[in-house]
Structures are given as structure tokens and as C-alpha cells.
């Protein structure tokens, strides 16, 4: 793999309490190279958003904080930068599309003001900022960019807001785009348009992309590599084609097995993974998937598996896929 542009090593996120540390994200390693597209999928609540937020120092702290780990961007250690230096990286070098648009948009300001202000903070003059704002809003498939520019956030639909967020992130021509569930409110046709826009930028400018999503169709369509998260860890990492063809972790296999099948009848029961995910802050020893895993054996209750090589993939499971069929 080419050199990483953005790299997370041993990232742990949680709370420090009087006597002990409570970890939600429990040691995550991720890397993206220039022009590469990485997908992050996984269980709801597994720590995808917190991991993404930690990159730009945006964790809701207190109480949450980066407990350990290194986040490097282009040779710089981001987690040791002061607020001012981080603010300079934010938007211009690494831009983020947030899962919840309302947390990052100011409800009292027009969309235009919010985008131009960010651009001006990074040195664009008034005319440049206005021009660029119009341009990016046009690129994300908004039917009426002039109205959107003048609107307040509450006057826009869910999908319009998502596209505003994407436009805002792309406005500063970032070198890394981190997008957290950016297209959940978009129909497939507009989603397609957004994916094409992102791919175009990635090819033309070498923008690296980290795309967090539950939409496995988007994963198949967009990204080169996928990291699967479960209970605060990456449990599988694989090239996209390999992940779909040969999942190496039982959770990945179960997730793919939960995709609706064309053979499933109207209103018939959809396949789901039984049981509930554990509380990552109160894990006992052993594999956190063992209560739900059809292949669990003795060792799984004793020791949590690290990421192990499985062909060209890596998976945190003691059992090789070949041994799954009991």
C-alpha cells in the first residue's frame, strides 16, 4: 500500500473515571492513502462516528476523550496540535460531513453565510468565497441553488441539508474527506450523482475519502477497502470485492446475511443477527461477538482475538472461515 496520508494507530476513546478508564473505542487502526477510498461499516453504536470525530479533535469532551493513540496526517501528529493549528487543518485539509447536519449548521444563519464564512476563514476573499459557494451548491444536484443559498437550515429538506453539508465540505477542496452517513436522506439517483462527484474529485485531485455508511450498496459501488467495526474495534479489514465474496469474520458474514433477499416474501421475517451487542465499556475477557456467534468455542471466552491475516484480508477471529462449517 502507498504511504498513508491519514493514519490512526491504537485509537482509544472513552471516559476517565476516578478508578478506571471506560473505553468505547478500544484500539482502532485505520489508514488512507492519497486518492484512496476507505469505507467504514458496522453495527449501530460500534464507534464509527466517535472514531471519525476524533480525527479533527471534535469529540464531545467532557466526558469523552482520546485516551490513547496517534492520529497522523501528512507527517503531522494531529492529536498533539493546539486548537488553532487544528482549526487550520479542519476544512482546508481534512473536511468532515457530519451524521447529524443540525449539530454542525447554525440554525440562525443563512446557508450562504455559513459556507462563505468557512471559506473566508481559510483566506478566500469575499468575491471568491461567494463564487465558490455558488459553484459547489450547483455541483451537489440541488435543483434551486439560489433559493438554498438564501435559506435557513429549517427551510430545507433532510436530503437538501445533506447536500449542503457535502457542498460545504468540498468547498475548501480538502485533501481528505471524512463523510459520516452522508447520503441517508438521498434517493438513489441523487446519491449516484454525489458518488460520481466524489469519485471525480478523488481522481482529479487525489482526495482521499473515508466513507462511513450502513448502505452496503454504496460500499460496493464506491470504496476500495472496507473496515468493519463491532463493539469499538475493527473486526475485519478487506478489499471491497474480497469482503463481499469471502467475509472472514462471522460478524461480517452475519451482516451480509441480513441483507434483504429477493426471495424474501412481502412482510416475511427478515434475517437479523440474534442477541444484542455488548456494552463496550463493560466487556469481560474474550471475543465480544461470542454470545451471538454460531462458531464460538472455548478459546473465544478466554481471549479477545487480535486482527489476524486471513488471505488478503485481516479479521479478529480465532477461527478461519474454512473451519466455520462445523
Amino acid at each position, binding site marked *: 500500500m502507498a504511504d498513508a496520508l491519514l493514519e490512526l494507530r491504537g485509537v482509544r476513546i472513552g471516559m476517565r473515571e476516578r478508578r478506571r478508564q471506560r473505553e468505547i473505542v478500544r484500539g482502532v487502526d485505520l489508514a488512507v492513502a492519497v486518492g484512496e477510498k476507505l469505507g467504514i*461499516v*458496522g*453495527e*449501530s*453504536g460500534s464507534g*464509527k*462516528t466517535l472514531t471519525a470525530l476524533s480525527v479533527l479533535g471534535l469529540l*464531545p469532551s467532557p466526558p469523552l476523550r482520546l485516551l490513547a493513540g496517534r492520529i497522523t496526517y501528512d507527517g503531522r501528529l494531529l492529536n498533539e496540535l493546539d486548537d488553532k493549528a487544528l482549526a487550520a487543518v479542519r476544512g482546508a485539509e481534512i473536511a468532515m460531513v457530519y*451524521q*447529524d*447536519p*443540525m*449539530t454542525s449548521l447554525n440554525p440562525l444563519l443563512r446557508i450562504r453565510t455559513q459556507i462563505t464564512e468557512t471559506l473566508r476563514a481559510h483566506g478566500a476573499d469575499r468575491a471568491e468565497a461567494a463564487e465558490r459557494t455558488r459553484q459547489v451548491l450547483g455541483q451537489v444536484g*440541488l*435543483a*434551486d441553488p439560489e*433559493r438554498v443559498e*438564501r*435559506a*435557513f437550515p429549517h*427551510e430545507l*429538506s*433532510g*436530503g*437538501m441539508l445533506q*447536500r449542503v453539508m457535502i457542498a460545504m465540505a468540498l468547498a475548501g477542496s480538502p485533501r481528505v474527506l471524512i463523510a459520516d*452517513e452522508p447520503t*441517508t*436522506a438521498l*434517493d*438513489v*439517483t*441523487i446519491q*449516484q*450523482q454525489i458518488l460520481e462527484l466524489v469519485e471525480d474529485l478523488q481522481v482529479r485531485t487525489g482526495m482521499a475519502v473515508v466513507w462511513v455508511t*450502513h448502505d*452496503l*450498496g*454504496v*460500499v*460496493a*459501488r464506491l470504496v476500495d477497502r472496507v473496515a468493519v467495526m463491532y463493539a469499538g474495534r475493527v473486526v475485519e479489514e478487506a478489499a*471491497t470485492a474480497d469482503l*463481499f*465474496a469471502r467475509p472472514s469474520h462471522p460478524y461480517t458474514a*452475519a*451482516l*451480509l446475511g*441480513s*441483507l*434483504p433477499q429477493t426471495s*424474501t416474501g*412481502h*412482510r416475511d*421475517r*427478515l*434475517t*437479523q443477527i440474534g442477541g*444484542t451487542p455488548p*456494552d463496550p465499556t463493560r466487556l469481560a475477557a474474550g471475543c465480544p461477538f461470542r454470545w451471538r456467534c454460531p462458531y464460538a468455542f472455548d478459546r473465544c471466552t478466554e481471549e479477545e482475538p487480535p486482527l489476524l491475516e486471513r488471505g488478503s484480508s485481516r479479521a479478529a477471529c480465532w477461527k478461519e472461515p474454512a473451519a466455520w462449517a462445523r
Partner: protein
Amino acid sequence: MGEVILRASQVTKEYRSRRGPLVRALRGVSIAVEAGRTLGIVGESGCGKSTLARLLVGLEPATSGTVELLGRPVAPPRGGRSPFARTVQLVFQDPFSSLDPRLTVVSALAEVLKVHGLATSREARRARAAALLEMVALGPRFLDRYPHELSGGQAQRVAIARALAVEPRLLVLDEPTSALDVSVRAEVMNLLVRLQDELGLSYVFISHDLAMVRHLSDEIAVMYLGAVVEQGPYGPVLESSLHPYTAALAAAVPVPDTTRHVHRDGRPPGSEAPPLTGEPPAGCPYHPRCALAEPVCTTVRPTLDELLPGHLAACHVAARRVAVAPGAPPVPG
């Protein structure tokens, strides 16, 4: 036909914002929902689905037209609670904006239970709240969380649990599974089917996820630019679409394929949608993007007519094809 529990007739909604243009978000929508059944609503971003959802539950007044629940108008609540708060509940598209940031999950659930007299003691309310969370695959550890301590998918499920707390007869669900992984999504969908079978709930199910809309809905209404352009039983609407817009929508669904890496069916309809402001385009609102458009489409607006039994569409070409050859697929591949 079963009992109609919700009926919207020729509903329009206009927004006039400060210094902004007039936005015609809904341009005459009529729908009906029967007891124990599901109406799915699909359509591209910005076509008016969430606006319709708010009108259906009486959160906002319509500019014209009527919305009736159980035969009585859903008046917008003036300060107080709507008389229908126990009959109908809305699960908002953005779960965080609908949860009070100052209330823990248990307080939010207990509050609705208390208001509706559904659990009398504190302990009973906490137990009921835990049971509601369990239904949406969240353990009791989430009872004492504040909304900002929840992930996107957890907040979405809390919002669903809160809507279910009052035991409504009709649930309007606006993108209720968009933040869920496929397994939890399956779990929530299974819950919705089960509650409908057991309690006879009715749903209005709004989603961009056509597979889920197809799975749950009895009827589907397809919206385009603030109007319904096709409506009918789920199978015919999605598989033998009458309207070219529906056909394009149904063909564009990407399928994650486990054998081939990328799999793309169909292309999105050409250019972008015309704006909602100003005068609507003359003729059929879809004509600037429609591959089948004919001269008449640019001048005469097609009406929503029942072209096949129970299957309505607003399209000149579909109307003619159905009249000429009732058996043939109206919109060829």
C-alpha cells in the same frame, strides 16, 4: 375496503420565507390510509414527503385542502396537545431534533406515558420504558442516557420507542431506518410487521429505501414535485410502473452483489428537477426529464387517473398505452 383512518384531500402547502420566494411544497395531494395497512411514500429528495408527514399528524396546517383522522379534521394544536396525540404519532426524519436534549431516555419515555396515563407509578413507567427499548433492540443501559450520548442509530430507535409508547393507531414514519445497520434495520422492520399483525396499527412509511418500502407497504404513492404521480398496490407500482418517473426510480436501485464487486442497474433520469418556486412548468411537471415526452406533455398537465383497477398515474403516454393495450407493460424496460 377497510375502514379509512386517515384521509388527506387536495392538500397544498406553501411556505413564504423572509425575503425568500414562495415555495409550493405540496400541490394538491390526496391519500387515504386504511386501518391495519401501510401506505409507502417514495419520491426524490425535496419532493414534499416530510412536509406531508407533518401535515398528516397536525403539526402544521395545510394551506388548503383537508386532513381528517377518523373522520375529524386534524387541527393544528394551538399551544396545547392535539386531541389526536394518542391516535397518531410521527417519527421524525432527524431523530436528534425531535428528542429533548435535557431529558434522559427514561424521562422522555416516562413523560409520554404519564401524560397519557399509561403507567401510574414511577417504577411501572421505568419498567415500561425498558420494555419499549427492548423492542427496538436497546438494552436497559440506555435508560439513563441523554440524547447526545446516543449514536445516530440509537437515537433513531429511541424516537421509534417513544412513538410506540402511547400505543397509537397510526404511525407516520419518516425515514425510520436510515441510520440503522442492516441487521438492526431487519429487527425494526420485523417489529413493525409484528405490531401491525397483532395490534392492527396503520403506517405511513416514508423512505428512500425501496426494498424496505416494498417489503412493508400494501400501497405505494410516488411523489414528484409536491404531487402524487402514481399510486397503487406495491407490486404493480414498482414492477409494472405506469409513470416513467417511477420506472426510473425503481430501475436505479444499486444492488450489493456478493459475487461481482460493482453492480449497477439503470441510470438516473437525466437532468435535475425543476425548482419548486415560481410558476410550475407548463404541462407535465416531469417533461423536462422524461424520455417519453411528447408535444402534448409540454402544454397539458396530466391528471392522476385510475388507469388500471386500483392503480393511478398522471401520465398522458401511460394513459394512452393502457387504453390501447391493457395487458402490455405500460413503460417498456
